[in-house]
């Protein structure tokens, strides 16, 4: 199970890095969301992965580490708020700057001058 979780976190992070490097606000936003999924899974597994053990004390002999669950909850809430802010900011940037590139201007391609349209 550890291997499976590790692979999932790795794949999520790879996709996130790829999307963030696309340098368009929408792609970056998706990338950051994926990165926060990867982070959440990672924090969740930091207390050790166990199957079939109780989350509540005294319910079973063994119990899962409660702290990472609390941390994950906090991280999810904060990540959610930050993503919401970024969505609004991206819309504002699209309106203010006339394009959705994170640098505020489109890179000029070799043959076609895409930047001229904005």
């Amino acid at each position, binding site marked *: 199970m550890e291997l499976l979780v590790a692979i999932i976190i790795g794949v999520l992070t790879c996709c996130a890095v790829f999307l*963030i490097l696309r340098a368009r*606000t929408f792609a*970056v936003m998706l990338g*950051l969301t994926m*990165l*926060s999924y*990867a*982070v959440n899974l*990672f*924090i969740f*597994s*930091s*207390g*050790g992965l166990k199957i079939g053990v109780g989350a509540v004390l005294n319910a079973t002999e063994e119990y899962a580490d409660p*702290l*990472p669950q609390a*941390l994950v909850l*906090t*991280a999810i809430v*904060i*990540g959610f*708020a*930050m993503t919401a*802010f*970024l969505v609004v*900011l*991206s819309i*504002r*940037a699209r309106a*203010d*700057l006339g394009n959705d590139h*994170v*640098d*505020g201007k489109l890179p000029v391609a070799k043959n076609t001058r895409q930047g001229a349209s904005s």
Partner: protein
Amino acid sequence: MNHLIILPIIWPLLVALLTLLPPFDRSLLLRRYLSVGGSVVLLVFSVLLAIQSTNSPAQLYQLGNWAAPFGISLLLDQVSSLMLCLTAVLAVASSLYASSGEDEGGFFFHSLLHFQLMGINGAFLTADLFNLFVFFEVLLIASYSLLIHGGGKAKTKAAVHYVILNLVGSALFLFALALIYGASGTLNMLDLGAKVATLSDTQLQLLQAAVALLLVVFGLKAAVMPLHFWLGSAYSSVTPAVAALFAIMTKVGIYSLLRVFAMVLQDAGFVASWVFPVLWWTGLLTIVMGVLGVLASEDLRKIASYLVVVSVGTLVAMLSLGTPESVQALLYYLVHSTLATAALFLLADLIAHQRGKAGDRLVNGRKIVQPVLLGSAFIVVALSIVGMPPFSGFIGKLLLLQAVPQGEAILWYWSALLGSSLLLLIALSRAGSILFWQVAGADTEARMAGGRRGTALVLLVLASPLLSLFAGPLTDWCQAAAVQLQTIVNISPGAL
């Protein structure tokens, strides 16, 4: 328990919420009184805490009375109380300056200012690494909004970079925290410090991976080379009162580095073997990049922004020496450089509004309306930043130079610091002579630096001579703070 410790976090939160409620939501005037008054009260709390922490052992505050490694704890020692006082002084100056018109750009200015103060104070007080993350996020989300306060293309563009970079930074911070928890089973700073010695080799490797991530996160906050590229555009596009407050933001990164590497992990072998060398060289390179930025800047606000980078480099390289003397010098220089750059941001705005269309760009412009006030303020701030006697920069740089141990370190640090001072002297004299002496055209009707603006400016400018006047007691105090910081970890969390 001493409940005063939590007030620097609760109080700004209360003030921020009050500004949203009647009768304050109807009248900007009332909001201004509340905001400035709130900052002054915060300063009183901070000074009281500083007096309490002087020559007394560090105090822990257990939120909800949960025992130390399990509950959330706040830690008050001399270093954190010093940072609280510094923040509160900036808060007073910033809210006062903003009250003269800058806060009309949006309804929530004063609320955001105090939410930001809450985050900054929380980051300075917390003794829990996860809580540090939470307070980072509080101060960041307020700073995102303050950054684009007033709107405009330049701000939006800078904000997109700043927000995305910091979101990636937050994700890395969480990875680091999870690794630390996985490796050591604790996130409490004091507990972690006590447990480092008992960790096995595999756990230490995990911890080192976490530390590498933390270096990136704190380096991004502090704007250490090569993570400093966001700072120039962000700091030079924000409104002046916000820029003055942001002068403390990079210091939050420095403070976190100090807490984690000079206090929590000071006994871990890997800190001396690779963390400090990394900080040393990146710090020195940051000085070089900052000075190049200052020399290449075309306006005074850009110069002030890159001066922040220079001071960050100076402090980070000093931090990596890890001795009590270096921490002492660092604390004194940190206070001086924060106040001086904040004053320069306010000054740049006043100069810009008195030179007609030329603004604060280094070109010929209209004659400045209040040459005596602004000119003498500029001379004090510039001499102080360069490090000329009799101002605080001189004493600060002297302490830094003395704190470097004999050997190869002197060669690098002395040449970086003295070389940068020389180049800053050239850059600032050029800027000053162009701004004040190369005048053309008729006199202008301009925004005067009277009342609130003048008071805020004078408050920050006067800090420099005051810091050098009281340098004796202050350096002794910083020395006690440094010694306390490095011995605190030997006390078990339960004993406090």
